[in-house]
């Protein structure tokens, strides 16, 4: 069985995001980029399934600018077998990504697709569910525990208020939550090895997928800022302020 893992290049989660002065977006020039953290967890899970001899090949795929190949190389250095870059210079929306992934999946026939539950840039939380709907495959989203057995998957999903256990047959779409696993670091020898692993380049046109944007970005702005308040000297003072000034208790 093949496992396909889509990975996205985003601003590193440790970097403080800055809005561009013309409000057209956030500053991406000279900003440290990295693999979306949820996607690292997806790659790790795919590798663990392969290491447990439940899969033969892990394919990392990214849709984006040329530099997204660095993100694919990171997945290859972690242990993925080969990569596919679907290159586009334009900003691309989850619906188009899902369509591109669908056309790759029809070619590659993976038994399982594992994605991060959301990307930490646009916070859309859509691609996995959209892909599942387009393929008419079962979906398990926000998964914090995953078991494969007899061509079936048992997943534990993180839902508001607790956990939910569901089961489905393969092929399936899984989107992962933070607590599923702790992704490995790529070792230096593996980083070197990754440079020689195959990386195929395609374009949305090659796949016959139209990627016109449906959402026009009108404006990107800073959120309203909060002023720092006062430092109080005692719990007494705090209780007094909460009762008599803020009137919240």
């Amino acid at each position, binding site marked *: 069985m093949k496992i396909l893992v889509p990975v996205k290049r985003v601003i590193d989660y440790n970097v403080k*995001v800055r809005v561009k002065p013309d409000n057209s977006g956030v500053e991406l020039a000279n900003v440290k980029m990295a693999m979306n953290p949820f996607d690292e967890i997806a790659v790790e899970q795919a590798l663990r399934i392969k290491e447990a001899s439940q899969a033969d090949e892990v394919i990392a795929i990214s849709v984006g600018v040329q530099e997204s190949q660095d993100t694919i190389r990171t997945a290859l250095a972690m242990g993925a077998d080969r990569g596919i870059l679907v290159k586009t210079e334009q900003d691309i929306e989850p619906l188009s990504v899902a369509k591109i992934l669908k056309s790759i999946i029809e070619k590659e026939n993976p038994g399982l697709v594992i994605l991060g539950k959301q990307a930490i840039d646009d916070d859309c939380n859509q691609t996995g569910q959209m892909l599942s709907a387009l393929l*008419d495959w079962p979906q398990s989203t926000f998964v914090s525990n995953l078991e494969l057995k007899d061509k079936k998957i048992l997943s534990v999903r993180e839902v*508001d208020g*607790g956990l939910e256990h569901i089961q489905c047959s393969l092929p399936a779409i899984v989107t992962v939550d933070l607590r599923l696993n702790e992704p490995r670091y790529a070792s230096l020898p593996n980083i070197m090895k990754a440079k020689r692993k195959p990386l195929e380049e395609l374009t949305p046109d090659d796949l016959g997928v139209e990627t016109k944007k*449906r*959402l026009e970005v009108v404006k*990107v702005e800073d959120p309203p800022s909060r002023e720092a308040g006062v*430092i109080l000297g005692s719990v007494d003072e705090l*209780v007094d302020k909460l009762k008599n000034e803020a009137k*919240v208790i």
Partner: protein
Amino acid sequence: MSILVIAEHDNSNLSAATLNAVTAAKQIGSNIDVLVLGKNCQEVGKQAGQIPNINSILVADSEEYKNFIAENVSSLIVSLAQNYTHLIAPSSTTGKNFMPRVAALLNVMQISDIIKVIDDATFQRPIYAGNALCTVKSSDTKKIITVRSTAFEACDDEGGNAEIKSIDCTGETNKSHYIKSELSSSERPELTSAKIVISGGRGMQDGSNFEMLEKVADKLGAAVGASRAAVDAGFVPNDYQVGQTGKVVAPELYIAVGISGAIQHLAGMKDSKVIVAINKDEDAPIFQVADYGIVTDLFDAIPELDAKIG
């Protein structure tokens, strides 16, 4: 313009998030229906019927919707979509699960987690965990929207007189099968709807120390939350987590105890009306967003707070 709001419930009670979503819908237009799908959910239909100024409550009562399996739910919503220009659901784990499927099946780009309605096609939504706000205008003929509950007031839930109609169900898709839920049972209010939230961070040092927060919470009628650091350290379960990857809360009062205030945590609570920070590190970033701060050892301050609010 015609709007369908997909209600959220547990087959017996309509959730508060539905009322927030209806408020967002009312800012878009006035021709609104509410869909209640579930199993033995007639009572929820009646509750929804009490919301003022709704045309119809559509009730789909059938086994395949009992556990809100996304494949089954989305197929019903798609079957109704031709009648509506806007489909709206709360941005809960349930809404996030089925709504993008609806969007893809209708070939529409979803607008996730809106916090403001500008006009019937233009909405504001947070990106980068709320570190930037993005206004987007949709060119799709239908708008598929999820609503961040904390950004909209709840609408009234009494006095309405909507017509309640049973609708055809779309059947079991046989894709995913529900096995069981492990829901945290608690007498305290739910994190996302509580008026007061008291959260602990890594500074709590141990899970058992959360009892101190629970005692204060019970006196204040508050919910108990935690930072991701406290969850990762195993002090409390993940559903306590407030932040970018956990729950987004906006209570009247948020008390952060032993929480340094990482960006990831601030993203989940900075819209709270009043923020209190108790931390022994005076340089902790949490003090930059707090209305009231005390620089002290939480192990002294919390028992004292407990005694003095009594």
